[in-house]
């Protein structure tokens, strides 16, 4: 296979691979935000529980899953690097301190539950419990800030949209976390979570409206994209899914509520992608077609992703079905 061989003869099957990878990168991001999102949500809900047995239940619920969920972030980074190297370099170095804030928050969030379980004295668990809450709230908040700055092309970290979107993402992770926990817990805890779900959903809808209003008023570049059929449809879909979530939560249709939460996450990420396209790094006006990697690696990665992503869904299927239903505290090793 010298000189790339057939891989160098233009895009595979003449597919619009640049656009496909744009979609794929956001799809992977949405998978991360949906899956690790409920872990973050569990972290915030952890703050609302005083009882140590209930707290243990929350940790047990995410125990087998969170590590796999977080790998979607690694894959997001890898996919962006592989498909749009210029974006990978520019975007992360431009938001240098914010990136390290996200990474720091993820370290605390990942470490805290492991540490919490190590010792059972009160002081130790109080501090690691706090660390878990702080990491779980700041990680999605910073991620939201990052996403907003990416979308509107901001070069400073703290901007009005970044703060609002940060809160929006935090609220969404709680919506997600409640839906997940109602699948994984029992009894009183499960019933109590219903109210948390309504509140988080309400907060989320208000914050989404604020974000969209801000874009309509203050970001002229995105105004026309905001009223494009796709984005309008996604906004309507968000409202419908919110209704489904609320009804399913009140009637204890746990799976339906969980699927609705997933839908809300995917809708939000799709709105971001829809607003951004055809740019992929609006701050420097870089478009998808200009940023795409050269033909040989593009074709190679497309084959790789095409073969591997279905396998990954099988792994997750095996994992989530092995742990279907409520999870008890003492399960391990």
């Amino acid at each position: 296979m010298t000189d790339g061989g057939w891989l160098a003869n233009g895009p595979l099957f003449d597919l619009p691979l640049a656009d496909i990878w744009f979609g794929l990168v956001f799809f992977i991001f949405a998978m991360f935000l949906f899956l690790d999102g409920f872990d973050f949500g569990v972290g915030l809900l952890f703050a609302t529980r005083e009882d140590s047995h209930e707290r243990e239940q929350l940790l047990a619920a995410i125990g087998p899953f969170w590590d796999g969920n977080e790998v979607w972030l690694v894959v997001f980074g890898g996919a962006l690097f592989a498909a749009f190297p210029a974006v990978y370099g520019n975007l992360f170095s431009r938001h240098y301190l914010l990136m390290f804030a996200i990474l720091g928050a993820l370290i605390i969030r990942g470490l805290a539950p492991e540490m919490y379980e190590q010792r059972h004295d009160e002081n130790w668990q109080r501090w690691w419990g706090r660390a878990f809450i702080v990491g779980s709230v700041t990680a999605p908040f910073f991620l939201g800030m990052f996403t907003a700055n990416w979308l509107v092309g901001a070069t400073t970290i703290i901007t009005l949209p970044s703060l609002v979107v940060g809160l929006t993402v935090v609220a969404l992770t709680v919506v997600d976390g409640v839906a997940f926990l109602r699948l994984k817990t029992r009894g009183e805890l499960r019933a109590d979570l219903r109210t948390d779900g309504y509140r988080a959903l309400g907060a989320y809808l208000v914050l989404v409206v604020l974000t969209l209003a801000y874009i309509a008023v203050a970001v002229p570049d995105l105004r026309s994209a905001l009223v494009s059929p796709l984005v309008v449809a996604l906004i309507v879909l968000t409202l419908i899914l919110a209704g489904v979530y609320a009804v399913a939560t009140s009637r204890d249709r746990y799976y339906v509520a969980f699927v609705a939460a997933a839908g809300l996450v995917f809708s939000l990420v799709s709105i971001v992608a829809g607003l951004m396209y055809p740019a992929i790094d609006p701050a420097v006006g870089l478009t998808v077609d200009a940023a795409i990697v050269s033909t040989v690696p593009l074709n190679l990665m497309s084959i790789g992703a095409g073969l591997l992503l279905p396998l990954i869904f099988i792994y997750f299927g095996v994992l989530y079905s092995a742990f279907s239903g409520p999870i008890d505290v003492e399960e391990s090793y």
Partner: protein
Amino acid sequence: MLEPVAASRLQFAVTTIVHIIFPVMSMGLAPFLIYFTWKDIRTGKPIYEQLRRFWTKIFAISFVVGTVTGIVLEFEFGTNFAVFSTAAGDLFGGPLALEGMMAFMLEATFLGIFVFGRQRVGNVLYMISAVAVGIGTWLSAVWILVANSWMQTPRGYELASENGQQVVTLVDPLAAYLNPRFIWMYVHMQNAAVESVALVLAGLGAYFVFRHHIWGYPIENVEFWETTLKFGLIALIITAPLQVLHGDLYARHVFETQPQKFAAMEAIWETESYVPEYIIAFPTSMQDLLDPRAKDIFGIGIPGGASWLASGGDPQATIRGLEEFEGPQPPVALVFWSFRAMVGLGFWFILLAVWGGYRWVRGQLLEDDLLHLALMASTPLGIFAVHLGWVVTEVGRQPWIIQDIMKTSAGVSSDLTGTEATVTLAGFTVVYLALLVLYLYVVARIVRSGPPAPADRTVTERPETPTDEVGADD
């Protein structure tokens, strides 16, 4: 405030040096855990269940800390080395993406089952999970080392210039991914991981055996620790000689492909033939320590040894000295002494293997207190040798981030300020050291509490899961 280049390099060094400990633990433990799980399922003997459960705990905490420290590394290419990432994305992004999709996903999902799922899944799926986790960790190293080895011996690319910026284009993926360095690196690294974990097993086992048999403290689970010592020793006997053997071939390969690095490893400044190999070198002054020169240093040299090693048998072979290469030079002292310390440790591990093997054959494995002390003291030294090896590899290739294509100083993000880089360097140094301390603390607690009591299998049957989860009204 440091310059962005210095701060970025230091930050990458600190984060990688701490991070590498955890993948070494998980890659090295993987074959042991697969074996313990297999024997546990097949024989049902309590000792294998204990071994599996105990080392799974250590594996799990290593994996978690490895994940959180590793994610930072992936993003550091974008944050700190943006020019490199943009220019070499063709070659570098792919392996990282494949690592995530092919290896890390496999490992992380099946680890959930392996750690938490013993009571939920049957033997077959449990065994599959153990193997999948093991394959995941080893595949992960494949892609990381493909990326790294390409920077050392780049192949399969074309150079172009875009807007005055150098861009590397991938033209032949096979040549690039299977570049000449890859296989040496992979074999040397994976064997090192198993050897390091073998030393951890042998060292911890020796500690408890020593306390029990030499000092006479009553120790619970003596059999567990004796078995741990024996498994560590078996693995050490297999891996220690191999490590030195292919290490030698690897060094020869470096001589052929990265002569500047090789000259730094040997501190040879002038081009010469019939170069001696200083198997033992003593710094007799500060000057020797900070600026070693092979010709001046006090040591035991084998005449023509370095030439013989580098060329594979010709004591007259010429070695190009550092003076032949245009500056800047790699920090020679760090490379020279790290290389010597690593090789010294490699031989020390062989000695331990032979010594332990001899005592075992003679039936005196549990009685030789000096051997136990030596093994105890060597517990962390395998991992330390891995650090030294990576220092030789990464410091020794300076000033290049991609050998002969791009200098490290040219690869750093252009919009990064010294203040930003110094702030994160300081912050993440503190965070990573704290992570390391916490990791050691947790491992020490696990070790101190010893292996879990074997479960009475008739009692651990789970009660039927209540059928209240699907859409039923509470």
